[in-house]
């Protein structure tokens, strides 16, 4: 399995079945309106107009990703959690809402939400030092609980509204298990890469000094 496989973010049948009642209601509304589940990719429009619609939806979704990043990193949340952020966590959050991944794959609206929640969750990973990073999995099967714990922590600190947002985000992740699993693997790869870059940094120091001297 390569990284491209991991970052593939189209919902599958299992996730379609895991919609909650409100989502089912919204799906019914779309059906009544005559829109196919892939309406923006459908042939009722010309390829050009379909591509245009895709672009509009993609752009709007990316903007919402930025809004969500602001929500999850707001001072209310930061102060409520009182975290010492994992170095690189903000980079993960930024990448989570980008229109494409580092691997060049497009990111769907659902994946943006999941990656952003996971990015916020990664801020709470309890690392006392980069040498303490476990060899086993850090996120696989754990991210929903991690985001849920952040919700509980916010609730304890009295940040009720922020707590609800994290609770809803954890529920969203749980209802999209395959997307969440892919995001966990991809995020963990990124975390390990960030850690490797940090560990390698001292080795490149002499090179940087030599370049500066030249």
């Amino acid at each position, binding site marked *: 399995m390569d990284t491209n496989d991991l970052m593939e973010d189209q919902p599958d049948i299992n996730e379609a079945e895991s919609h909650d009642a409100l989502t089912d209601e919204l799906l019914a509304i779309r059906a009544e309106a005559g829109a196919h589940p892939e309406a923006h990719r459908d042939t009722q429009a010309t390829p050009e107009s379909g591509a245009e619609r895709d672009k509009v939806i993609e752009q709007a979704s990316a903007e919402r990703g930025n*809004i969500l990043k602001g929500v999850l990193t707001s001072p209310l949340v930061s102060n409520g959690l009182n975290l010492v952020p994992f170095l690189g966590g903000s980079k993960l959050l930024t990448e989570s809402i980008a229109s494409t991944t580092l691997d060049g794959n497009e990111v769907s609206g659902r994946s943006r939400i999941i990656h952003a929640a996971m990015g916020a969750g990664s801020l709470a990973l309890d690392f006392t030092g980069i040498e303490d990073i476990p060899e086993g999995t850090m996120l696989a099967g754990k991210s929903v609980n991690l985001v849920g714990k952040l919700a509980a922590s916010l609730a304890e600190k009295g940040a009720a509204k922020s707590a609800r947002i994290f609770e809803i985000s954890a529920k969203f992740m749980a209802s999209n298990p395959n997307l969440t699993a892919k995001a966990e693997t991809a995020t963990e790869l990124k975390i390990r890469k960030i850690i490797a870059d940090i560990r390698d940094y001292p080795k490149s120091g002499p090179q940087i000094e030599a370049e500066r001297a030249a």
Partner: protein
Amino acid sequence: MDKLELTTLVHQLIGLGEDPGELNYWLEIFDYLEPTQQILLCANLQRELKSLQ
């Protein structure tokens, strides 16, 4: 924009092919967003609707 107007807006977008799963998430968190975040979200959805129509 109140929640009812937002819900109507979301229904319109879904009718135009937007993802119900994603927009349902935004409907669920709407009440817990800060007022400025709510305004940003509504503006985003209104712009999208205008562009898709």
